[in-house]
């Protein structure tokens, strides 16, 4: 698809599988909102073919352009834009009503969604009587209540306070998991991507510079932008009481960042900067002490990234983990590729997030 807005051109091409959640990342002005607007039918692309579950939404070659309201594509835009004349509840009930549900059903659904995002007590307020974060939550509830075939969310967690953001993220994750809601999510926070997205698309200046499964892109970012936001260590497995159990049975100690039941698919995430590197297994509080063979040294600005391979006899998933240390620390350590080292990570530094599939 190619969309022009004034001097700006967006030119991207990608697919989203049904039930998949794709996070769109990119700097300000890279075309994320333009992409969502084009999918929602708000901008006419110059040259595009957009299909959704077999339906052609836009095909400039064939002259097809389904109007926005018939696309079954929901959009939460960057501005809340609540209808000023309706209460919070009526705002949220608007979508279900349009989908033909009864007044009672719609109001019930609206109330449920409002409770989900933590503003159930504000149902009767007009938007003018809501704070910025409250309005944003109502807008999220309104977008979720539509249950469209494709849900587009443009920075849904901006303006939310430190408690609300993870809570609302959980709500979204539950929805996505329970109903298989296909979703495209624009965010500036990589944690949103980790928790919610199967795949990432990174946009810069109107073009896709990177895309792929979340873990892959974050672990091995190839674009400068992705590298800056990502470069996380991820270990996949299932949630356990202590943290996470990997497929080979090892336990990664960590703290659940949000509700995740033992046995559920999960991912343990920690920043490479949290990984201490030792010649001998250290005693002390760090719970995760992993044998690793140094595979490569990657200078990254002020720090040096140590890339691990699995050590003989050690857990295989250590392969690819990174540890960031200062050059001074590296000098003292005197480590070279091929050396066997110990990576130590405190359990309090490891966040266990639920994972899709």
């Amino acid at each position, binding site marked *: 698809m190619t969309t022009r807005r004034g001097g700006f051109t967006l030119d991207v091409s990608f697919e989203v599988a049904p039930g998949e959640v794709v996070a769109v990342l990119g700097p300000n002005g890279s075309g994320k909102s333009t992409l969502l607007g084009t999918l929602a*039918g708000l901008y006419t692309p110059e040259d595009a073919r957009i299909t959704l579950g077999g339906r052609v939404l836009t095909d400039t070659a064939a002259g097809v352009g389904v109007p926005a309201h018939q696309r079954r*594509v929901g959009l939460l835009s960057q501005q809340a834009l609540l209808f000023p004349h309706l209460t919070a509840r009526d705002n949220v009930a*608007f979508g279900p009503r349009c989908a033909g549900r009864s007044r009672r059903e719609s109001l019930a659904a609206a109330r449920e969604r409002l409770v989900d995002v933590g503003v159930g007590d504000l149902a009767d307020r007009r938007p003018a009587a809501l704070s910025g974060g409250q309005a944003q939550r109502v807008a999220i509830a309104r977008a979720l209540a539509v249950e469209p075939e494709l849900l587009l969310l443009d920075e849904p967690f901006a303006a939310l306070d430190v408690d609300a953001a993870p809570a609302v993220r959980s709500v979204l994750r539950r929805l996505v998991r329970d109903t298989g809601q296909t979703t495209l999510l624009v965010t500036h926070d990589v944690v949103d991507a980790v928790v919610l997205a199967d795949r990432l698309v990174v946009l810069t200046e109107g073009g896709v510079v990177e895309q792929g499964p979340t873990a892959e892109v974050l672990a091995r970012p190839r674009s400068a932008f992705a590298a800056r936001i990502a470069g996380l260590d991820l270990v996949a497995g299932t949630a356990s009481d202590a943290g996470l159990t990997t497929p080979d049975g090892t336990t990664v100690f960590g703290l659940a960042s949000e509700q995740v039941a033992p046995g559920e698919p999960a991912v343990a995430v920690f920043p490479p900067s949290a990984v201490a590197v030792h010649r001998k297994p250290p005693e002390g509080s760090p719970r995760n002490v992993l044998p690793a063979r140094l595979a490569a040294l990657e200078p990254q600005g002020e720090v040096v990234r140590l890339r691990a391979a699995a050590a003989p006899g050690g857990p295989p998933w250590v392969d690819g983990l990174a540890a960031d240390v200062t050059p001074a620390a590296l000098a003292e350590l005197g480590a070279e590729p091929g050396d066997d080292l110990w990576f130590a990570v405190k359990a309090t530094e490891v966040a266990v997030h639920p994972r899709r599939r």
Partner: protein
Amino acid sequence: MTRARPARGGAVTLALPWPVWVPAIVGFGLIAVPVAGLVVRTDWPDFGALITTDAALDALLLSLQTGLISTALCLLLGTPLALVLARSNLPGLPVLRSIVLLPLVLPPVVGGLTLLFLLGRTGPIGQLANDWFGITIPFSTPAVIIAQTFVAMPFLVVSLEGALRTAGERYEIVAATLGASPLTALRRVTIPVVLPGLISGSVLAFARALGEFGATIAFAGNLQGTTQTLPLLIYIQSQNDLDGAVAMSLVLVVVAVLVIVATRTRDASGVR
């Protein structure tokens, strides 16, 4: 030091710049003083008798009925027209827009004559109505309503169009992404959002319909109980009984103020 005046909800009402007040008062005076003159000139001792003649009561009733029906028609036909002018991208929109304004420019009597040429007994449409249904349109109450609608509709259309443009279509876009069909968006979003403009427009249209004289007398004629609205009675009366005419003008004025204050009070308590 200027004081911020408190308003409901604790929000401050911004002060109006002082240079606004002088012309506002002059403008208000230009309208209010002549009207006050009307009050002064009224022959109060005979006022009751003057305004309760059969003809006056008939005319008042007819004026209210036709005025309200015409306003309803203006809303019914004019709202869609304003939407087309504000939101569609038909070619030649500026020309369509100025055609809609023509009843404003045409001297009302000429407007009435054009209606008569068209719908009169020998007019192209009037003849059909006469031959097929045996209906003669002029000299009937429906003719009054047609004439009033003809002259009043542009008011609704133009002021609603202005409000629609000022409001923009961002909320309609949101409604579309929530799956609202254009009709639903119109009903549940556009109309409520431009309600102040719609009310202004209706008030203008109602006031214009209530005061309509030239087109009515030219097209519908002047017969007590059927087509003689208050302005017609006032005009005819003013030919030999100015006191009666002034008294009835005052009635017209009071009726208009009542209806408008009633409408507006409802508005003020509604949505901004």
